[in-house]
């Protein structure tokens, strides 16, 4: 096996190993919360599990998957060797060390602060330092992606960067901007407190810095799915990408709008005024633009494929699509979940309306649908699509792959729809148990059980996913039938510099971030909030 393939597979297996462990924990948590689990587990174990679930899904699965996928794209889309492969391995091992440093305190109950930290609660310093190492590892990946694209551009002056790589670099640059907030929070506030160097924390500032990261990080997780939508799905369906330009514009819009919107996570917070909140709500409304553009462009691309396959009439092309191919099926299921999740997100960003659902199961449902549903199902599809190319082996049957995708879709929908309903009734988040004797809560019980059963379905799907990949490793060698990346209906010959690089957009991000976050952060220097004493969970 050659080096880059080993590099990609190493990243993917770490990601999916963490995913499987987190899936088990998530299912267990739903059991504990349900009326069936009244005597299962202690709150200490529950919050330990929630911390591990969040860290594994949000930091390990995503970061490792995205790094591995980025290396794959850099080599395949640019058709040139990866620059700095030794650095890539260094970043991998550094991130592995970070994961271990983070996992140990979680497992011993010394870091039950959830993956979103909540200072002035603090856990073991190793927990945070480990996470910093993972982030620094991902920074190396970002630099490698930028270097790879720059090298390609030098060698191919004037030609448009392949969309897959353009999007990957957009994600890398976005991630560099994104991590500034959490890095500042950890390095200047939380880690000194966890080490005992400081005894107090300015909590308002910590929350504001984390909000800087909190929304854009989700787009960092999301972009691989969009890369698959634009560059893989049209070809898998047998068609072409409707518009390459819109693809570029979409990823640029994500870079600009995913960052200055994090304060919509703080709409219910007391440390900011209405006006600064409103500015970011307005910007949040515009972050729906790249997604809505994508929905249209990709649906049009699929329509091309369906009509080429003989579909007629207004909607006849839908039935004509090759739904037996995992990538096409995943895109379809992903879009359905994106629709429901997007609806939940619209409500979340509703300024005052956020009060109706803030920190209820509605929010949990929203991000499980968007990330756990529409994004992770695309991680599956990407894995299924490129695993044969990494191993040189072929699937003997696609049926278990389809079954796994359907199970994931059904499980996610059945789990999250009751959560939306319960959230609307005020079921709150992050609790180890509910008092089902209370008349208000009693009625929630059956729905909590339904979502627990759906959690079992999700667990079955997660196991089947790993099984499908393991089976492939044992399958016979096979030639790969089909190229991966889609052509556009009009493959771009020349594109404006603005759509072929990020200089302009970085300047715009800087300006917008100064406008959106400048005063909200500066206010803590102008009039610091009275600090809170650190509470150590160790």
């Amino acid at each position, binding site marked *: 096996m050659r080096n880059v393939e080993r590099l990609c597979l190493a990243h993917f297996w770490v990601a999916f190993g963490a995913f499987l462990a987190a899936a088990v924990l998530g299912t267990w948590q739903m059991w504990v919360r349900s009326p069936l689990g009244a005597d299962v587990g202690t709150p200490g174990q529950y919050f330990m599990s929630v911390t591990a679930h969040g860290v594994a899904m949000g930091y390990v699965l995503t970061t490792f998957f995205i790094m591995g996928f980025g290396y794959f794209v850099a080599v395949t889309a640019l058709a040139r060797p990866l620059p700095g492969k030794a650095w890539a391995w260094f970043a991998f091992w550094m991130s592995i060390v970070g994961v271990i440093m983070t996992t140990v305190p979680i497992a011993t109950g010394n870091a039950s602060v959830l993956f979103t930290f909540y200072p002035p609660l603090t856990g073991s310093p190793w927990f945070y330092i480990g996470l910093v190492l993972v982030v620094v590892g991902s920074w190396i990946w970002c630099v490698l992606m930028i270097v790879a694209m720059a090298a390609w551009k030098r060698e191919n002056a004037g030609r448009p960067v392949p969309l897959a790589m353009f999007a990957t670099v957009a994600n890398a640059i976005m991630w560099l901007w994104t991590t500034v907030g959490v890095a500042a929070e950890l390095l200047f506030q939380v880690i000194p407190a966890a080490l005992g160097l400081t005894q107090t924390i300015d909590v308002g500032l910590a929350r504001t810095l984390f909000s800087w990261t909190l929304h854009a990080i989700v787009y960092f997780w999301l972009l691989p799915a969009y890369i698959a939508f634009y560059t893989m799905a049209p070809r898998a369906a047998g068609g072409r990408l409707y518009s390459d330009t819109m693809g570029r514009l979409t990823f640029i819009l994500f870079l600009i709008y995913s960052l200055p919107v994090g304060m919509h996570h703080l709409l219910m917070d007391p440390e900011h005024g209405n006006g600064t909140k409103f500015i970011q709500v307005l910007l949040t409304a515009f972050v729906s633009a790249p997604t809505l553009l994508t929905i249209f462009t990709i649906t049009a691309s699929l329509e091309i494929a369906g009509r080429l396959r003989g579909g007629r009439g207004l909607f006849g092309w839908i039935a004509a699509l090759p739904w037996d191919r995992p990538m096409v099926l995943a895109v379809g299921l992903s879009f359905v979940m994106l629709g429901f999740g997007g609806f939940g997100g619209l409500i979340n960003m509703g300024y005052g309306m956020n009060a109706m659902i803030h920190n209820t199961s509605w929010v949990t449902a929203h991000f499980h649908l968007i990330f756990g549903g529409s994004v992770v199902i695309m991680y599956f599809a990407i894995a299924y699509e490129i695993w044969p190319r990494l191993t040189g082996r072929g699937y003997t049957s696609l049926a278990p792959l389809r079954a796994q995708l359907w199970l994931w879709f059904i499980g996610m929908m059945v789990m999250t729809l009751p959560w939306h309903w319960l959230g609307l009734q005020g079921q709150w988040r992050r609790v180890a148990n509910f008092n089902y004797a209370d008349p208000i809560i009693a009625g929630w019980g059956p729905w909590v059980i339904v979502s627990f059963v759906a959690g079992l379905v999700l667990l079955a799907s997660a196991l089947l996913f790993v099984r499908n990949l393991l089976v492939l490793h044992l399958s016979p060698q096979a030639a790969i039938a089909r190229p991966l990346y889609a052509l556009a209906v009009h493959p771009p010959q020349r594109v404006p510099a603005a759509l072929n*690089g990020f200089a302009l957009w970085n300047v715009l991000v800087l300006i917008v971030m100064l406008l959106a976050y400048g005063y909200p952060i500066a206010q803590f220097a102008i009039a610091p909030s009275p600090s809170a004493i650190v509470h150590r969970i160790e």
Partner: protein
Amino acid sequence: MSEPRISEPHVLDQPWRVWATVTVLAIVISGVILGVVIIPVVQGRSAGIDAYTAICRALGILPGSPAEPQPFDRTPSTPVSQVTWTPEVLQILARADPERGRAKVAEVCVACHGEQGVAVVPEVPNLAGQSGAAIYKQLHDYRTDSRTHPQMSAIAKALEDAQIADVAAYYAGQPKRNPDPATLAESPAAIVRLVELGDPARNIPPCAACHRPGAGGPIEAPILSEQDRDYLIAQLKMYASGERRNDVYGRMRTIAARLTPAEIAGLARYYRAGFK
């Protein structure tokens, strides 16, 4: 990336630069005008708040909503404890000297609390391995009469802040004896449940959420393992009746009032466990 390439079409690029910048800035500026000026000023007008105040409130420079008058404060009152966990107090605790504390203990405390913090008189708390902050808080409260005791009030009043910290540091440094799991297993399931899970139906949090080392609860929460049984029963009863009230915001008064006498006895037995 910053240097435009020779063969990239710059003619096309110019409008991109201009229009992208104009669009993005127009969106942000319309947000500023709407959110910081129009909405608060209109809201303030209907609530009788002047435009300047409304805009300051929208920015977070002045407290309150642009749409509502701010309520007035109430007069000050007698707090149940004078202790505040400021960095300065934590500094005093951190700078405490266990050796000076040992001398003070030998002079004053030893008669009841024992040299190593193992009580020699009934109904007196064991202090070995107790959290320093907990000891500091109680002594300080005796000194300010937030908590009263025939002997302790007088003793505490004779101590200075730094001496209290020294004594606390000394006892905190005495070896903890971890509860013996075998003894703990003999506790009734209902009591273990109360400790680990609390009672959701009665709104009682688990004891372990605060009273275990490193639980992350209130700073002053004492560690309860190996505590004297009679002492615990007496304190829980005094909390329940309101006779003892130096727990800030009534955290223990509320919980103790919801415990049955049998549970109080069971918890006291549980926490004595392991003390041979």
